[in-house]
């Protein structure tokens, strides 16, 4: 009996430990079985059948129309086939990182501003400059500032597909119910806070239900309004000296949360779980939502009443808005078909065929020809029209385009969120949180850049 138990205990213990270990290093196990995919690479472009692997993140509708675009391209170029692996945003970059580590990065990869620097620093992405020079790609249709956002250390390693601008979406129905007038571009943060409180008092709904500290975009806008920049030029530290900027930002939002006008972290996490299409904006049960200017287009399925206005001004402050590249296509350095990829991306960005299917779902197209085509096509829905109009509306409020986010931005975002939440949960003062954020952010940035 004793022996039996001892032995069983030992065996189970050993195997459990083995499993726990394997779970930690499971990804490296995946290493060994990948790498075979690139073997088909010998075929050249001249009419031979080629399969390009492509991956992107997005929702169901993006998956469907992107597949249509790919089919269209195959129809026009019968020798080019696609193997698509679409996914949601969650887990997308985890998977991409492991694919890259195993040398199995798809040929064409949808890339985000957050990670462009990281992948560039590791030489995982192909330099597309030669294809722009030899005419495979026409980048002359793309605004120079936006194009430059995909150019790191002189290499064009990412082609922007769309631009985004920070916006405040609002529900006219909800505002009307609260007796609040629709905002105009000259509104200030005080107006915003007051209107949110008003909505909450009159209707019981949330004034605003977006997460102001999920990443540093809202804060970046705030810092820019103070005439500063979020990160220093060498990306080794924060770009502003005065912690009061951070303190004021935390206090502004904390005040709104305490009033019930903004979603507190608890409410926000619950809303996040619902997803934006099931959130309160869908049913006009919330006043405002800070997001990007393709938001109303994304929401059109569930609520086609939403409108957009530029984010609040800082009294006596500067223009803080900037054109953010919405997303990119990059080509893997390991791809055997870089030229074919470049040709496809060019077609995807500039052609009428692709844009007629896409209809600006990825954000305002970067290509001026695509924009002209869409605006003159007469096929735009009201929301899509709004998205285009918004670009003109916001232009006078834009400042310089900031450099791409530094390496380590995901960690900085996490540190920022933790610091903000410690204020929102009444655990530390805004001053202490601001100081702790600076200390953490600086050490993360110094270690990564």
């Amino acid at each position, binding site marked *: 009996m004793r022996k039996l138990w001892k032995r069983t205990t030992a065996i189970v213990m050993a195997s459990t430990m083995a499993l726990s270990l394997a779970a930690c290093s499971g990804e490296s196990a995946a290493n060994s079985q990948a790498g075979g995919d690139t073997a088909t690479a010998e075929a050249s472009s001249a009419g031979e059948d080629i399969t390009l692997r492509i991956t992107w993140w997005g929702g169901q509708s993006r998956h469907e129309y992107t597949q249509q675009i790919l089919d269209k391209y195959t129809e026009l170029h019968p020798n080019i086939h696609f193997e698509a692996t679409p996914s949601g945003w969650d887990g997308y970059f985890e998977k991409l990182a492991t694919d890259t580590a195993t040398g199995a990065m798809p040929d064409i990869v949808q890339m985000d501003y957050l990670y462009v620097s990281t992948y560039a620093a590791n030489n995982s992405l192909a330099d597309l400059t030669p294809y722009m020079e030899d005419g495979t790609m026409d980048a002359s249709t793309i605004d120079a500032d936006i194009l430059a956002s995909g150019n790191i250390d002189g290499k064009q390693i990412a082609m922007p597909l769309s631009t985004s601008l920070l916006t405040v979406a609002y529900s006219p129905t909800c505002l009307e119910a609260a007796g609040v007038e629709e905002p105009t571009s000259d509104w200030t943060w005080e107006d915003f806070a007051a209107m949110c409180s008003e909505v909450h008092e009159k209707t019981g709904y949330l004034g605003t239900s977006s997460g102001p500290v999920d990443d540093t975009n809202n804060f970046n806008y705030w810092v820019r309004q103070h005439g500063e920049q979020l990160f220093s030029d060498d990306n080794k530290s924060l770009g502003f000296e005065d912690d009061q900027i951070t303190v004021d930002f935390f206090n502004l939002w904390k005040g709104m949360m305490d009033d019930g006008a903004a979603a507190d972290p608890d*409410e926000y996490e619950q809303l996040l779980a619902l997803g934006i299409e099931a959130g309160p904006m869908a049913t006009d049960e919330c006043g405002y939502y800070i997001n990007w200017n393709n938001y109303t287009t994304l929401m059109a399925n569930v609520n086609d009443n939403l409108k957009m206005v530029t984010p609040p001004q800082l009294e006596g402050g500067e223009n803080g808005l900037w054109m953010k590249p919405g997303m990119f296509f990059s080509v893997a350095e390991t791809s055997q078909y870089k030229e074919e990829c470049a040709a496809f991306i060019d077609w995807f960005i500039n052609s009428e065929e692709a844009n007629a299917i896409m209809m600006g779902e990825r954000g305002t197209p970067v290509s001026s020809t695509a924009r002209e085509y869409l605006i003159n096509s007469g096929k735009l829905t009201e929301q899509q029209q709004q998205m285009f109009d918004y670009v003109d509306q916001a232009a006078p409020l834009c400042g310089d385009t900031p450099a791409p986010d530094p390496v380590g931005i995901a960690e900085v975002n996490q540190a920022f969120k933790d610091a903000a939440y410690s204020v929102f949960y009444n655990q530390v003062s805004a001053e202490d949180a601001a100081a702790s954020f600076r200390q953490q952010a600086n050490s993360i940035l110094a270690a990564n850049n």
Partner: protein
Amino acid sequence: MAMRKAKSLQETQHYSAKDNAVGYLLMTPWLIGFILMWAIPAGMSIYYSFTDYNLLSAPNWVGFQNYVTILTTDTNFRQALFVTLGYVFVMVPLRLIFALFVANLLNKKHVGMAMYRVLYYVPSIIGGSIAVSVVWKQIFGNQGVIMSLLERFGIEQEYSLVGNPRTALFVIILMGVWQFGSSMLIFLSGLKQIPDALYESAAMDGATPIQRFWKITIPMLTPTIFFNLIQQIINGLRIFTESKIITDGGPMNSTLTYVLYLYRTAFTNFHMGYSCALAWIMVLIIGLATVLLFKTQKSWVYYEAQ
């Protein structure tokens, strides 16, 4: 004696040629799996733990730097360890007590008992899954059943149970306790091995059911308890899904469990080398905990054969 030894040695030699080959052949499927899925990855992860590997470019040797950073300056490491140990210290005893309680109830001859056993085992099968974690998140969220009930009884809370840094870990602990099925089954088989004669003679001597439980059931069950304890502690230290899905480590890192931190380090922040070092520290912790427990068993685990 000497002769027998010599004989057995001879026998060993006799077997070695053909039979050993057959033995290894039969072992091959397992051996391949072991080497490919365990030994090589484990070896690689030891190597990576001494590098600055970031998944995207070739690793550079950094010596013990990762370990030094983790043990000296990493506040998230301390928080994650604190959360995980707290989770294990509270969850494991509760789960075992609950499992033993239910096993006792089910250790009776009764019509339909098999069905109850299956029913109580169900949470263990589905418990660690994403779907249940999502449901759990909703139940304890601010729109969920639990908060509505509390409100009805006049207990107003500023935050929901999952949204409050003070209580979020308890929701996850509760989910751990709820998955008591596998310990319960092992207890049940342990209970069945206690000879009825002991209970009968104790009853004859006038022992109450409570006395019988403490003086017979518990001592006779100590090997099972020991086994369950070790298994559950190791399992508990590896908690990941619940904290990833229900709270994603939040609010304010109050549910940042060790493996979640490790995962985040590797796949969100791309510090694979650092993350491997974290993994090996965990292996050491698990090993240490197990050794310590084995040392204590002399003083409280009763084996019948002794």
